[in-house]
């Protein structure tokens, strides 16, 4: 150890100044800033102060936060796993609070895993009964020794997991039974957006139920709406589609429209248009691209909303059909584009709210086409069966 020198003599000024310059110039997630500064995730963050840090989009796998102060740390899309060490860390009010409770429960209690699997994979109505009865209605003997506190931890874990809609809806409706306060309830939502945005079906399910049940909670609304501005197209698409039929959508229609139709959400719009067109059939797909394709189309090749119902674009689409046997006329292209929009999630709701005059006609027309198409298919099947029957 050096001895008898002043802090000024030992102060590594140039090293710190370099670090400061790097920090001033960079706008990166937490884990990338760590890398930029050449810090070591295995050692440097023990006993550290990380209160109110935003861990959004950070990869915290392998980080050692032993003894660190992580109170009120927050973020969305945070990657962690068993290698993220939170031993002895202060986690109150942070996105790690539920996680540490879970880890403690599963480490200390051998039957917790069995009970949790029973909840996750068990009959939806039996599990819903257990939830709504606040644990009184037992699923099996193993549930007998589960305390109220442990039940709460299991429910908070279950609600963000990949479960069916019945269980998730029941969990949301009985949130007050396993959350002690408003902040605890918000912790459930924070936990979800922090760690569970990798599964679009979970996002859709979670967000749609949360937006139905908790739309009046400002924090929940803000958090769900923030998912509509997420960097990942699939997350955004799932979020928009999930809130479409909820009170949250109706209460924030102007903001959501601005968001949905903004420039950087073109990929989301194209993705929805393409998926709807594919569902309706090859001819519909043909009507929304200028490549002349009826299948194997990438969403980037699809027309965006503002390009649809446009005379000039009709000509381009028509021209792209080249030497096809049945070329769609401009009129047919227009009608099919309208039917796509009338059936597309989010678009149809927005257009309905705007009182679009052709919407209902387009819906009816697409339904007629579908019925006729089904009739033709049934007829073909009957004829085939007749041909091959003895």
């Amino acid at each position, binding site marked *: *150890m050096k001895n008898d020198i*002043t*802090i000024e003599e030992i102060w590594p000024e140039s090293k710190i100044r370099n670090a400061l310059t790097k920090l001033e110039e960079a706008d990166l997630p937490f884990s990338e800033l760590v890398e930029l500064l050449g810090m070591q995730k295995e*050692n440097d963050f023990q006993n*550290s*102060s990380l209160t109110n840090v*935003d861990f959004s989009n950070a990869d915290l796998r392998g980080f050692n936060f032993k003894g660190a102060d992580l109170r009120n740390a927050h973020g969305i899309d945070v990657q962690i796993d068993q290698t993220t060490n939170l031993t002895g860390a202060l986690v109150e009010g942070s996105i790690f609070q539920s996680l540490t409770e879970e880890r403690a429960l599963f480490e200390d209690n051998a039957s917790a895993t069995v009970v949790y699997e029973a909840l996750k994979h068990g009959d939806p109505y039996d599990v819903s009964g257990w939830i709504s009865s606040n644990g009184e209605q037992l699923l099996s003997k193993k549930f007998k020794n589960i305390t109220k506190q442990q039940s709460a931890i299991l429910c908070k874990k279950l609600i963000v997991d990949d479960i069916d809609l019945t269980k998730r809806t029941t969990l949301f409706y009985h949130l007050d039974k396993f959350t002690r306060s408003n902040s605890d309830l918000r912790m459930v939502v924070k936990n979800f957006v922090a760690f569970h945005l990798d599964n679009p079906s979970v996002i859709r399910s979670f967000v749609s139920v949360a937006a139905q049940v908790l739309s009046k909670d400002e924090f929940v609304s803000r958090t769900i709406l923030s998912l509509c501005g997420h960097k990942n197209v699939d997350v955004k698409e799932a979020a928009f589609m999930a809130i479409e039929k909820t009170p949250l959508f109706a209460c924030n229609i102007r903001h959501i429209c601005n968001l949905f139709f903004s420039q950087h959400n073109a990929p989301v719009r194209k993705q929805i248009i393409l998926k709807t067109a594919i569902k309706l059939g090859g001819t519909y797909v043909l009507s929304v691209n200028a490549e002349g394709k009826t299948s194997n189309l990438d969403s980037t090749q699809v027309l965006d909303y503002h390009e649809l119902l446009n005379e000039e674009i009709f000509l381009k689409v028509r021209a792209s059909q080249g030497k096809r046997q049945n070329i769609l006329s401009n009129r047919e292209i227009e009608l099919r584009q309208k039917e796509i929009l009338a059936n597309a999630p989010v678009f149809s709701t927005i257009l309905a709210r705007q009182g679009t005059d052709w919407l209902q006609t387009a819906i009816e027309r697409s339904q007629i086409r579908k019925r006729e198409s089904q009739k033709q298919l049934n007829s073909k099947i009957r004829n085939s069966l007749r041909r091959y029957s003895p």
Partner: protein
Amino acid sequence: MINQNSFPDLCELLVEYQDNTEDENIQNCMVVLRVSTGEVQLGDHECTVEFNRLYISVDHEGMEVVSGSLFGEPKKPNEVNRTSELAHKRDTKRNSSGALDISRTAFAANSKTEFGYSEAMNQDIIVREEGTELRVKARPNLRWEVREPDGTPLNSTLLLNDRLVAFSKHSTANRRRSSLSLRAKQRDIQIKPHSGDAKTEKLFAYLTTNKKRLLDIFIAKSLHEAATSSQPYRGEILISQCEHDHEE
């Protein structure tokens, strides 16, 4: 006796062993601990370095700790004396003025009188509670936590030739040694712009929470590496170390 202080102008830990006047087998570990805030340069900016909490830890070999000799033992008595005072003042103000809008079609004249009624109540509630806290508090395993009870940075003499602990010699031990160390966890070190330095305050205000936290950790690590290049950084800075061979 070897006393080593990495930043003697910020933290000074001095240790001296004295024979106990009543029992020659016992040695008292007398400690001086002075802590101050420091100012450092960061280019054109001036920053203040402060400690909010420090830990003293003691290791020993070939000796035993004399029971009851620990400084700052926070032993609580069985009986708890508590003084509570509740004062409730109530101050009521009333204002009244009048206004009434009368418009009568049968008469040409209109008259207007305004009136309103408001009542304001101020209530002061005072709760007083007495108790004692320790700046240097003994913790388990021969550790002492040093902090200001109100959470303000350490900036005074905390120990002045106070007996931190007493050791009795093991008759059968062939070696007697003790070591004291003074450490600070990164989360208990504060680096902030020097008060009144607007340029530095602006710089720090510009940094996001994430960047400020990372910079603080980076600085702590750099300080540790500058002071003790041999030991890896584990979120704590070794500020002082005193080793004593009791055979001398």
